[in-house]
């Protein structure tokens, strides 16, 4: 994505608040949400801040549930608004029916998931346990969200703009998949410019039928099987086109013999593990997927030809690792290191794991 020059002073902000401020600057028309830890600062910030922004016309509504929130998002998006909601894992589960309808009706919107540990009511501590739910559809039927995974407070803000750009380009719901730590921690952030996201006409929206056009219908009901299949084929074609939006970044992969793969906060920790490893002379690099859907299968496959093994690190029981293995196709061993329930691996833990695997590999080779 294009990077504009930012002249504004850096601010120290919480991830959730930086995201909320970015939403105001992205000129959202509406936010509908329901409180849940660890993301309630998003709605709190908007409720506090929006009335002070006289130049803005933004609806901020606390709904009676996440179910109502996502259906308000459906209505507003169908009416042509730039609209978003945010929640955390159990709340996002409640939204899955609505997200399936939104994907089928092809409505652009942003859903933010500040993930907490599960399953069930779980814990309010950070987790990456919703990777499957976010990237494989989540609700019923064949569909995908575009999924962006920030790894810093800066990206919590920046990805709001990227998310709406992609949502509106493809008429598809987009998810920012963060975690409780990214939502809660404070970091330096240079905010995106106010009003920096253009709005384009949406001739399909339900804004009132005028004489010069047929009535617009927002629906996900296609009861004839021939028609339903046609809609599905269209969706699949769109998902194919979205593959060109794949984003990732790499650290020290040029000469890497060992590859770490991690997203979000885990990638931040792995970056430190790479530094520690390099200090000890271990040639380790890191690939960090930025979009989780689409996923950088091709680049991981290329790197798999150059490394001895891959270690995938996540804050869950092993979810993205399945996509990594799909990319690698058995060319090299893919190992997994994960912690769950709100626990987070330290860089030293990751390095120890890496060294243990390295040793085992060498024994096998000798």
């Amino acid at each position, binding site marked *: 994505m294009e990077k504009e020059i930012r002249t504004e002073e850096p601010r120290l902000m919480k991830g959730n608040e930086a995201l909320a401020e970015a939403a105001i600057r992205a000129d959202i028309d509406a936010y509908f949400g329901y409180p849940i830890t660890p993301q309630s600062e998003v709605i709190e910030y908007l409720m506090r801040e929006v009335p002070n922004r006289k130049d803005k016309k933004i*609806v901020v509504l606390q709904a009676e549930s996440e179910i109502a929130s996502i259906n308000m998002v459906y*209505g507003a998006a169908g009416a042509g608004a730039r609209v978003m909601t945010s929640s955390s894992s159990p709340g996002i589960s409640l939204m899955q029916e609505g997200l399936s309808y939104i994907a089928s009706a092809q409505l652009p919107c942003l859903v933010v998931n500040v993930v907490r540990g599960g399953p069930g009511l779980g814990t309010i501590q950070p987790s990456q346990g919703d990777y499957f739910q976010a990237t494989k559809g989540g609700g019923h039927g064949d569909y995908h969200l575009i999924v962006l995974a920030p790894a810093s407070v800066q990206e919590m803000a920046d990805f709001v703009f990227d998310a709406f750009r992609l949502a509106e380009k493809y008429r598809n719901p987009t998810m920012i998949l963060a975690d409780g730590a990214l939502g809660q921690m404070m970091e330096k952030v240079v905010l995106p410019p106010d009003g920096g996201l253009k709005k384009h006409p949406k001739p399909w929206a339900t804004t*009132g039928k005028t004489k010069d056009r047929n*009535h*617009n219908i927002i629906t996900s*009901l296609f009861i004839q099987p021939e028609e339903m299949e046609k809609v599905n084929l269209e969706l699949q074609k769109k998902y194919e086109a979205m593959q060109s939006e794949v984003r990732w970044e790499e650290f020290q992969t040029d000469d890497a013999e060992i590859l770490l793969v991690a997203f979000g906060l885990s990638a931040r920790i792995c970056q430190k593990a790479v530094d520690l490893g390099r200090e000890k002379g271990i040639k380790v690099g890191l690939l960090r997927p930025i979009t989780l859907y689409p996923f950088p299968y091709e680049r991981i496959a290329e790197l798999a030809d150059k490394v001895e093994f891959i270690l995938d690190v996540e804050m869950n029981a092993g979810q993205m690792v399945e996509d990594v293995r799909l990319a690698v196709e058995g060319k090299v061993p893919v190992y997994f290191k994960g912690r769950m329930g709100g626990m987070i691996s330290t860089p030293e833990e990751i390095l120890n794991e890496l060294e243990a695997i390295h040793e085992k590999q060498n024994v096998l080779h000798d």
Partner: protein
Amino acid sequence: MNEKLLLDDGTELEQVFCRPDTLTDVPYHYCPGCGHSVVHNVLMEVVDELNIQDKTIGVAPVGCSVFAYHYMNIDMQEAAHGRATAVATGIKRVLPDKLVFSYQGDGDLAAIGTAETIHTVNRGENILIVFINNGIYGMTGGQMAPTTLLGMVTSTSPYGRDIHMAGYPLKITELIAQLPGAYYVTRQSVHNPNAVRKLKKAVTKAFEYQMQNKGICFIEVVSNCPSGWKMTPVETIKYLEEVMFPYYPLGDLKLPKE
């Protein structure tokens, strides 16, 4: 309207009645004798007469009227089951100058969507809710609804609705009328021409209140389901008058203080 029609013998006829532009030229899929088509007609006649086709946005539910947008020639959204008033809230909040209504059955509004119904009314959203109560799930084949009367036989209450099993028929409109957010609450029917005329007056008032930003209007229509009730259309009218109306009495439940 007002088109002149010339017959072969030279007689000139004036057209005084026709299908309004707000209704598409598509035959209703509803069963013979069902009240849905009459309520659709009434709604779209009012939209036509008030000249608000370009301002009106409807929300269809899951249920028999899921295809309401096939017939109503206005912009419409199809909501998930029970969520019509949440969808309507989303539309109205971003397009406050438009006129928004939801059209919902008893299962949609008073069972799966109860939370959305109560909270939308409680917020006083400036919309119209049209609630069709025929005491049965028509679309899925005649199962028990929250408003099914005691003793009424349905496919999921094959020996009649039993309070020990299924509780009482829900008088949700009475509940709605208690909420301070509600502006105008009325219970109507379409079982005879006089009732249809009354409903039309109520719908007209509701749209006018919405134009004046008065708040939420809630119109229940106690209707029939010949297929689900396993009666002829004529028998359903008798059942409405003798059994349904005594439990769901027609009339206004909350009138604006004007």
